[in-house]
């Protein structure tokens, strides 16, 4: 039996590939060649009047060629295609820093690739936001020349933040790095697929960033119809870019869900599974349902533009598009924040060294939010609905606050009478909880049709969702980066500086977005680069706080980078946490644990000194 298995596994080539070009560079070259071949073939078969070399159909086919070339170039040819046809893989993963610039099968490398790519996207989309806020400092247009430029900036900002940052950092980034460690696994199930999946993210982001080259588009991150079908070619790159990024998320989710179910260490029962792992499992299932849904909706919208069909344009049913978009769009919000809820209850018990309050209810909350998230979508389109149709969606939108409250209940119950260590991660988690309370409560207002119809498409809505996404998820991301920095790098940050930097972004964030509630109530519409002069003072103030916030995020990034490279050496388990990632060295070795892990009890009880798990070390090799 074992002999047969060995035969079937003859995959490794004794002659490793000697790379003459960095995989990323080779990917770019092959992508260019792929684009040229596919594009020119299309215009040869389907010429347009005037015979331009790039048309809307040709750019779509060319993009497919570019994507294939890119994925082959970064290592897919040697790592995936050759083994698929039975040839031995010639791909050899470097052991030094070069491993971050090509296909990898190590979940920690992939996690860091995701984190760096997503941070870069956060920076670009953040600069985009700064441009938007600079424009809005004056009532008339003074920075952008055309309204289309402003609206494209808004659309690129929103799309990059949602699909390249919000959906990615906590799941594909921290999830890829920490979930296998937290369940005692040495690798993930679909590691090669996961490695390829990362490289879809920069491809998608670059596509979106390049979208203005094909013409300014006006729809924002929602791609609203029938506007989209009338927009210039930039819409095409919006659909394609998001397609690549969502595909990356599907792959990451599939890999993590399978890993959680099948690669848990001995003794890691469902009742002992860490909170963050539960969070990743629930959002992975959400991703596997809703990301393909939005991909197909975008394929249909793309056909509306290219053929043209009339599914969603003025001859078709724009309302169907809105429904299909928000069927995905609202679960997307929970996809972003559920891991954050889980992380609060991961970090607080550690910092308090106190038993997690109502752990089971915290998990039930995550699961019920997951299930209810598909039932609330129509509150985004109340303005297009009859009164009788609004009621069930209003009801479920308010009901979802109950399981959401379970996460708060667990966090507050744990904080109750705790001797909390007031560290930077603690402070940031408390800030995230505060922010999300405001985002959540204003969400309950928005779920009520009378308020919703009044403030629809105003800055009140923008303030609400930024409080949930930035205030809830991004603050938690920063908290998690500080919390896990000693594990990622083996080094410690400056806690005093970290707290000041946390305060910096807290003031910047609340200064920016709390005033946006007032702006919205005062009548400031979304999607307009010019507005009535009476709104200027508030807009001016919002912009100043926004610049302050942007600088604060950069300062935090610099601090984390400095600590990663130059920070003082950290103890192995500086927070005295019990979860499994702290059972191994920092940073962890290639196969995570130098031995076999056995879990003997849960991770969230601090009323005893017994260990939660044991690491049975591998025997020393004989000399």
């Amino acid at each position, binding site marked *: *039996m*074992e002999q047969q298995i060995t035969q079937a596994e003859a995959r490794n080539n004794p002659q490793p590939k000697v790379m003459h070009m960095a995989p990323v560079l080779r990917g770019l070259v092959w992508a260019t060649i792929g684009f040229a071949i596919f594009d020119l073939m299309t215009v040869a078969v389907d010429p347009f009047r005037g015979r331009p070399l790039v048309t809307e159909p040709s750019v779509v086919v060319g993009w497919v060629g570019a994507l294939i070339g890119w994925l082959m170039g970064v290592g897919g040819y040697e790592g995936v295609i050759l083994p698929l046809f039975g040839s031995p893989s010639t791909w050899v993963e470097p052991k030094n820093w070069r491993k971050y610039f090509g296909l990898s099968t190590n979940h920690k490398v992939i996690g860091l690739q995701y984190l760096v790519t997503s941070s870069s996207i956060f920076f670009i989309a953040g600069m985009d936001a700064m441009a938007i806020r600079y424009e809005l400092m004056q009532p008339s247009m003074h920075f952008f020349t055309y309204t289309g430029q402003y609206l494209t900036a808004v659309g690129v900002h929103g799309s990059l933040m949602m699909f390249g940052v919000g959906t990615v950092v906590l799941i594909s980034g921290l999830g890829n790095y920490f979930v296998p460690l937290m369940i005692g696994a040495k690798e993930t199930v679909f590691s090669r697929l996961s490695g390829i999946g990362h490289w879809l993210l920069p491809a998608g982001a670059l596509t979106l960033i390049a979208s203005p080259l094909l013409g300014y588009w006006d729809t924002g991150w929602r791609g609203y119809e029938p506007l989209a079908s009338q927009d210039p070619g930039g819409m095409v790159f919006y659909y394609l870019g998001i397609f690549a990024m969502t595909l990356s998320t599907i792959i990451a989710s599939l890999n993590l869900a399978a890993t959680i179910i*099948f690669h848990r260490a001995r003794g890691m029962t469902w009742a002992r599974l860490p909170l963050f792992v539960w969070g990743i499992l629930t959002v992975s299932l959400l991703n596997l349902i809703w990301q393909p849904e939005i991909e*197909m909706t975008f394929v249909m919208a793309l056909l509306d533009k290219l*053929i043209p*069909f009339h599914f969603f344009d003025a001859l*078709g049913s724009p309302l169907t598009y809105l429904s299909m978009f928000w069927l995905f769009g609202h679960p997307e919000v929970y996809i972003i924040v559920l891991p954050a809820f889980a992380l609060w209850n991961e970090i607080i018990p550690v910092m308090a060294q106190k038993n997690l309050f109502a752990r089971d209810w915290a998990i039930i909350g995550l699961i019920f939010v997951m299930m209810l998230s598909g039932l609330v979508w129509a509150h985004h389109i109340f303005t297009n609905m009859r009164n009788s149709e609004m009621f069930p969606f209003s009801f479920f939108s308010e009901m979802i606050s109950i399981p959401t409250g379970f996460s708060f209940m667990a966090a507050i119950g744990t904080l109750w009478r705790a001797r909390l260590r007031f560290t930077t991660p603690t402070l940031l988690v408390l800030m995230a909880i505060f922010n999300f309370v405001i985002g959540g409560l204003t969400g309950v207002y928005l779920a009520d049709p009378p308020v919703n119809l009044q403030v629809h498409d105003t800055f009140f809505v923008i303030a609400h969702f930024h409080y949930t996404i930035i205030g809830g998820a991004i603050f938690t991301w920063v908290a998690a980066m500080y919390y896990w920095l000693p594990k990622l790098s083996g080094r410690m940050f400056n806690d005093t500086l970290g707290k000041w930097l946390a305060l910096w972004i807290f003031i910047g964030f609340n200064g920016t977005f709390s005033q946006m509630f007032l702006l919205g109530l005062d009548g400031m519409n979304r999607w307009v680069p010019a507005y009535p002069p009476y709104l200027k003072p508030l807009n001016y103030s919002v912009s100043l706080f926004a610049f302050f916030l942007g600088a604060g995020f950069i300062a935090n990034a610099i601090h984390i980078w400095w600590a990663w490279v130059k920070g003082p050496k950290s103890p192995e388990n500086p927070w005295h946490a019990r979860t499994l990632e702290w059972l191994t060295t920092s940073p962890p070795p290639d196969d995570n644990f130098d031995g076999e892990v056995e879990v003997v009890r849960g991770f969230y009880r601090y009323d005893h000194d017994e260990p939660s798990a044991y690491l049975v070390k591998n025997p020393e090799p004989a000399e």
Partner: protein
Amino acid sequence: MAVTYAKDREIAAYRWGFRIFLVSQSVPFILIFADWYMFDGYYVSPVASKWLGSIEAFFGLLSGLIAWQALQAIRAGHLMAMIQGFRRAAVIGGAQLVLLAYQWGTRFIPPGTRYGEVYYTLSGVSGFYELIGIFVLVAISFRAARVQFTAHYHWDAEAAEYFWIFQMVAGFLSYLFLYWI
């Protein structure tokens, strides 16, 4: 035995993951079916050729059956029968695609109608999955010859079969919706 247990566990993980992936990939089809209902309640145009559609569906079912037999062959340890079965299934799948291309080329169904839009989208998506399936069948038939699948280790063939059956079922449901429901 420990190695065998680990391998069995690994195969179970692959199997579960791939099935969940296929469930996930059924969402695009469900979306089109739902959208079609919202557009015009499953109206079937009288110009749609039920004969051609039925022949296409028959080819799909036939190739699915052959691929299933190929998987049974490798389970019994007959490697060559599996390779030939996968290649036959791919050829019949290719014939189904040629028929689809013929239907598209003749434009019996005008693309400018609502039924036409749904027809070209649904049959196009279905054909895309079939094209991927053909690629996978051919690739795995080459791989099987080089890597020597056995009666106990043939996960790659099983995965190809899963995908082929998935696209066959999705294609058959699309056929029912497009021509009968």
